[in-house]
């Protein structure tokens, strides 16, 4: 058989292929030749064939049949073979396949080889792709090499040890003795890799951290030498001596100085020195400054140093280099909470970054801007932010709008300003605002009593211009429904009143009903608004007609409303004025913005407000049916504010609020006397108890699941007025050394229960118990049966998806009794 073609020849040939098909053909031919060559156990050309195979693998073609050949090459005595063999192993083998374990023995032998370059190959391969089993078997050899005097091997052994520790954390102790003299090395390679090793050990183990804290003076000394020493051609990069080592030392100092006053003090001087003396004209210098800033902010540094750090970041912001600006914004975002005033000084620069072309920079500048808004700068900042909202990409609009709302709510200098700002947001980014902003706005508008006329006038005008942005349309319809009388009466103090007739208003509202642009929810709003106007306008007949037409609408929602309103006209006309009267001032609920942790899926989380008086609300539609039962006269029925679990299913469902306007609804309950298509709203007791969630009664927490390092604990609370609802919070923690990402918790309960799952705090469970994911579950248990739950967990761990089902039966009796 002729000698197989050379590697370069093959590469050249394949590159001449003009189509994918041609290339595939060439590859297949060559693969066939290689396969038969392998079958013949040809030692001479094995190396060449595997090299070719690796090339083809890089192009994307399968090469698994070469795996064993790689192992044979590794076992060969020839250096050329070993080199290609180890390369092949790193590219083709992975720890999932048992085949890789065959390498262990070869690596062991090579670790003890007489030639250091062979030892180097083995260390490299082990440190790159060694599996836990391999690491366990070979840790001893690595440890030995860590103590050798050969610096070429020592530096590689240190990094290999890092990998071993990552794979098998229990082996960390083993390397401790070898670390004794690592820092006294002169060789920069060994120094650098030793610092990496020490960093890894300190990050993983608090004991190691304590142990190595005594190295701080030595590290400071090394760093000092690097800065003060003259030009060293070997390690110089643009005039700076070994920046890589400097950065790593700074990072280790950060870890050692964190939450320790003495160490922090010991490094104060050197940090100040690095911060002031480093050349900033090139990226290298800035890299060191960046690391220094991160260290200063993380340790217990004195305030002068912190201000120095923030000023460095401020200077970064003015740098022409985008990368530097990006890095500055990221760091400032991390420090804005703790060093607020210092960051405020750079506000104008940050706001300028909103106009940057780079998406990442814009996003950071936006987040930072929101963090910097306060009572003093609100007007100026809002101007900039609104301008940004106008011109930014759609991906930003939702977050920006939420941020604007939040900031406006906190710092609005006047009600009129507030309403103007909101209107501006609705008109420019109306379709991107979150669902819960509509009820929030309505509440805000209701509460600004003196602005009603102005608001409704502006909203009406906006509606005339554009009916495509649903949130705007919804708020407008609601307002017109409420304050239509002010609109037509032409009273407006804040601006020139417009002349509008009742018919014109009704035209607009009816237009919304028929328009294709209106979402079903919007139609609902508009029909209700028309209905409300029946008590405010005189053209009642026209309204009656509209309402009766929609009594036969195909849309079930509209039909139901229309039928109920019709009933109001016919049988309960005496109740109509009371039912449709002006909304009273509502209590504020907590609003959510981009910088706050969102607890719900865009539902308004009615965090139990501190109510001293009854939250009185009239809900015409729902109440119509329930009132038939209770025979309420002109009474207004109090409703307790809680979120509505409309679906008994497990996932947190959307809030299908009937009116969509208020976050008020009762709990669903089996009130079967009135046949309604939707789950009926229970007017939960006519009790006037304030709704507090403070009875976290002595229900003991329990562990619901503990497997593969994932632990789920449940804690319980009881909502006061309704003992049938249990509020359970899950806490998910992770004891393994890798994060669990894309973590999703799902639960299902037997039919007699109803369950609502709110949004989780995040979906990454950090490794080594560094944090937890929490999620709130509400379970309605009217029949007081024993609570049982089936849970399904899905997450990704170390790159592979994991799924598990479990039954939770051991709920403490107090949680369901």
């Amino acid at each position, binding site marked *: 058989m002729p000698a197989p073609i050379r590697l370069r020849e093959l590469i050249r040939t394949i590159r001449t292929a003009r189509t994918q098909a041609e290339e595939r053909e060439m590859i297949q031919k060559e693969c066939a030749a290689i396969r038969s060559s392998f079958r013949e156990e040809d030692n001479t050309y094995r190396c060449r064939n595997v090299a070719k195979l690796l090339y083809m693998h890089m192009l994307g073609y399968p090469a698994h049949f070469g795996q064993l050949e790689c192992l044979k090459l590794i076992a060969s005595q020839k250096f050329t073979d070993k080199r290609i063999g180890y390369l092949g192993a790193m590219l083709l083998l992975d720890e999932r396949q048992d085949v890789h374990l065959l390498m262990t023995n070869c690596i062991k032998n090579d670790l003890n080889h007489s030639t250091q370059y062979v030892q180097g190959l083995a260390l490299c391969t082990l440190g790159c792709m060694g599996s836990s089993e391999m690491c366990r078997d070979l840790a001893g050899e690595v440890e030995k090499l860590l103590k050798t005097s050969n610096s070429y091997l020592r530096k590689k052994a240190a990094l290999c040890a890092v990998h071993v520790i990552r794979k098998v954390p229990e082996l960390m102790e083993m390397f401790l003795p070898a670390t004794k003299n690592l820092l006294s090395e002169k060789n920069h390679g060994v120094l650098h*890799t030793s610092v990496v090793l020490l960093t890894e050990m300190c990050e993983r183990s608090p004991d190691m951290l304590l142990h190595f804290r005594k190295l701080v003076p030595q590290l400071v000394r090394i760093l000092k030498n690097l800065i003060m020493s003259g030009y060293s051609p070997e390690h110089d990069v643009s005039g700076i001596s070994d920046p890589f080592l400097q*950065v790593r030392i700074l990072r280790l100092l950060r870890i050692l100085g964190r939450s320790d006053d003495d160490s922090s003090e010991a490094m104060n001087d050197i940090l100040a020195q690095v911060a002031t003396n480093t050349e900033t004209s090139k*990226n290298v210098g800035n890299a060191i400054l960046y690391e220094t800033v991160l260290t200063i902010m993380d340790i217990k540094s004195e305030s002068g140093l912190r201000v120095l750090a923030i000023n460095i970041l401020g200077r970064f912001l003015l740098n022409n280099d985008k990368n530097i600006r990006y890095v500055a914004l990221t760091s400032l975002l991390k420090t804005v909470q703790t060093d607020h005033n210092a960051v405020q000084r750079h506000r104008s620069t940050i706001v300028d970054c909103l106009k940057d072309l780079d998406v990442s920079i814009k996003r950071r500048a936006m987040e930072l801007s929101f963090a910097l808004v306060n009572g003093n700068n609100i007007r100026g900042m809002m101007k900039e932010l609104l301008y940004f909202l106008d011109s930014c990409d759609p991906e930003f609009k939702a977050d920006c709008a939420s941020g604007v709302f939040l900031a406006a709510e906190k710092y609005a200098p006047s009600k009129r300003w507030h309403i103007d700002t909101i209107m501006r947001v609705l008109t420019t980014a109306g379709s991107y605002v979150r669902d819960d902003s509509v009820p929030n706005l309505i509440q805000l508008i209701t509460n600004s009593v003196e602005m009603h006329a102005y608001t409704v006038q502006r909203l009406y005008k906006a509606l005339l211009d554009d009916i495509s942005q649903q949130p705007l349309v919804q708020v407008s319809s609601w307002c017109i429904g409420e304050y239509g009388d002010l609109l037509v009466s032409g009273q407006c103090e804040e601006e020139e009143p417009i002349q509008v007739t009742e018919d014109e208003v009704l035209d607009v509202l009816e237009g919304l009903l028929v328009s294709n642009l209106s979402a079903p929810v919007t139609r609902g709003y508009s029909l209700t608004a028309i209905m409300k106007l029946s008590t405010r306008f005189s053209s009642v007949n026209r309204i009656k007609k509209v309402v009766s037409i929609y009594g036969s609408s195909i849309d079930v929602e509209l039909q139901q409303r229309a039928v109920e309103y019709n009933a109001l006209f016919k049988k309960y006309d005496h109740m109509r004025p009371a039912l449709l009267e002006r909304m009273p001032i509502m209590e504020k609920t907590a609003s959510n913005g981009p910088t706050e942790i969102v607890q719900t899926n865009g539902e308004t989380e009615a965090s139990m407000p501190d109510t001293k008086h009854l939250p009185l609300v009239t809900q015409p539609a729902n109440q119509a049916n329930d009132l038939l039962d209770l025979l309420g006269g002109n009474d207004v029925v109090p409703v307790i504010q809680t979120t509505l679990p409309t679906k008994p299913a497990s996932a947190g469902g959307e809030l299908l609020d009937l009116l969509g306007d208020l976050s008020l609804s009762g709990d669903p309950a089996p009130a079967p006397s009135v046949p309604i298509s939707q789950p009926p709203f229970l007017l939960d007791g006519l009790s006037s108890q304030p709704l507090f969630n403070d009875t976290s009664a002595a229900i003991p927490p329990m562990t619901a699941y503990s497997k593969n390092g994932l632990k789920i604990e449940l804690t319980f609370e009881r909502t006061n007025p309704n003992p049938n609802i249990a509020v359970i919070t899950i806490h998910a923690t992770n004891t393994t050394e890798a994060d669990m990402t894309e973590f999703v918790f799902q639960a299902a309960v037997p039919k007699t229960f109803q369950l609502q799952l709110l949004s989780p705090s995040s979906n990454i469970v950090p490794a080594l118990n560094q944090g937890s994911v929490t999620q709130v579950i509400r379970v309605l248990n009217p029949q007081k049966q024993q609570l049982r739950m089936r849970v399904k967990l899905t997450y990704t761990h170390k790159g592979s998806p994991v799924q598990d089902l479990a039954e939770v039966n051991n709920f403490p009796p107090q949680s369901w009794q």
Partner: protein
Amino acid sequence: MQFMLLFSRQGKLRLQKWYVPLSDKEKKKITRELVQTVLARKPKMCSFLEWRDLKVVYKRYASLYFCCAIENQDNELITLEIIHRYVELLDKYFGSVCELDIIFNFEKAYFILDEFLLGGEAQDTSKKNVLKAIEQADLLQEPRHEYFNVPVY
């Protein structure tokens, strides 16, 4: 560092070094998506982007993109220096390196990378030392052909 990818402006992969264990399928998917994302970036944009839960640092040298994925605690700016150092090493070794050098001598590019980085971290911060080690290792290759140091395969 979790991985390093080198690819051309047409999206062809020239080198892939993975420091985390992933299946072939996952590697292909990540490569495909990341290459697309980076190639879509405009020239004026900064060298960093957030991708999945990683930070990605990339830099273009002539027709090749050098792209690294680093962890959240890693320093982006020094990663740019690492990339630059690798390019300098290649340049010194091949003498004014260009993409073709890396295509036809990909295994050497790997050898150089493996002498510079181990497990995703720099082994030696001295350019001279890394190049010396490569030179010495090349000398060990056998048998030698009519040209000194030309590999036999």
